[in-house]
């Protein structure tokens, strides 16, 4: 038997497969591709979830800015509406009756001399304050028109909030004249600031700067996370290619 003849005959032979043979093979390959892509899709989903969590939680972890109700209130720019300035309660609290109520009976005699001296000084200062333009005081009050409408002592609150470093303790034990003097001092400081920069609100400016800084920090964090996701995607694509 001549083997070479058989070999040549068989090597030249071609048997055409069925018409749907490629379809069968193609479907099988598609199924395998889908199966191999599943874990990668799972990983991508997990990565996206981590990214979203990171974007929402991480900035709050790094941010140490305490957001006070005042801040929230100041974010909304309310239209400037003139409200009547009520100074009566402030002056009412200066009356001797209220002094009697607040100062204890025992300490009254001891503090009598000091009170007289302080009262004279305070009266002088108050007179100076009275001379100050009402419009500047109105500006302070207009910072929170709603509050001013509700509470009669808005002016005091407004002053205290605008200059937190001169917060006045309101305990009944504090000598009243001393409190008045401190209040006047604070009022003067605020008036001075207002006079220096009538158009710039320092609290607002500080808040805006804080927002800018926070936004920058958020952007940096977001960029880092997006870079990470991009790298993850590239690796996943490379993995898909390798699997195929």
């Amino acid at each position, binding site marked *: 038997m001549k*083997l070479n003849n058989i070999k040549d005959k068989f090597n030249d032979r071609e048997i055409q497969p069925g018409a749907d043979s490629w379809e069968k093979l193609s479907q*099988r*390959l598609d199924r395998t591709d889908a199966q191999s892509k599943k874990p990668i899709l799972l990983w991508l989903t997990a990565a996206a979830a981590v990214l979203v969590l990171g974007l929402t939680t991480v900035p709050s972890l790094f941010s140490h800015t305490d957001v006070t109700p005042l801040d929230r209130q100041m974010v909304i720019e309310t239209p400037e509406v003139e409200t009547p300035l009520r100074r009566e309660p402030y002056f009412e609290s200066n009356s001797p009756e209220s002094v009697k109520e607040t100062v204890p009976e025992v300490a009254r005699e001891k503090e009598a001399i000091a009170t007289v001296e302080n009262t004279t000084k305070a009266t002088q200062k108050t007179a100076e304050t009275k001379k100050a333009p009402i419009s500047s005081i109105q500006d302070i009050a207009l910072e929170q028109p709603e509050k001013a409408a509700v509470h009669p002592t808005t002016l005091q609150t407004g002053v205290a909030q605008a200059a937190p470093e001169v917060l006045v303790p309101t305990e009944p034990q504090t000598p009243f004249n001393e409190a008045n003097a401190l209040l006047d001092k604070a009022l003067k400081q605020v008036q001075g600031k207002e006079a220096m920069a009538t158009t710039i609100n320092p609290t607002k400016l500080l808040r805006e700067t804080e927002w800018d800084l926070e936004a920058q920090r958020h952007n940096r964090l977001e960029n880092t996370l997006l870079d990470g996701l991009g790298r993850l995607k590239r690796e996943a694509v490379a993995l898909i290619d390798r699997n195929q």
Partner: protein
Amino acid sequence: MKVIQLYTNEKKLIEKAAAGDRKAQRRLYDKHAGKMLSVCRQYISPIETAEELMLNGFFKVFTKLDTFQHEGSFEGWVRRIMIRECLNSLRKKDLFKWSQEIEEERLEDEVPDESEEDLPLHLIQECIDRLPDGYKSVFVMFAIDGLKHREIATMLDISENTSKTQFRKARLMLQEQLIELKKKRHEA
């Protein structure tokens, strides 16, 4: 020049197919499916089973195409995958029965050549199909696919001498069948 171009084209096609390009895979399939089904048919009958094994083989080809190093011919690489697929199928069905080894001296005896040139290929195929699976596999691997006895022994997990024995016995049996077939044809 033309040969180099063809080689480059096939290389590009293989690279695309390895990257999962379905069109490139289709072109490679269309190019080699006919020959590979013929290879599978040499080992396996009926043709439907052979086609099934060929599809299995192509599935392995496309899923492991990135391991092809372009060192030998692509067709040779695919052919070996097909042969392995067929042998695995026969092994699973436990169809290999190896006959007793023949002594070395007797292996050298030449079997007288009997011309079968006038016989059509499908008749020769029928005669090969009638051989026991062990004989048939070794005969096809050696006589048609051109593998050496050492390679056959490794692939079938048998000794080299067993491979030679199987081939010799297969050849004798096939020759008897062909002579008988010829006689029948002459009588007819």
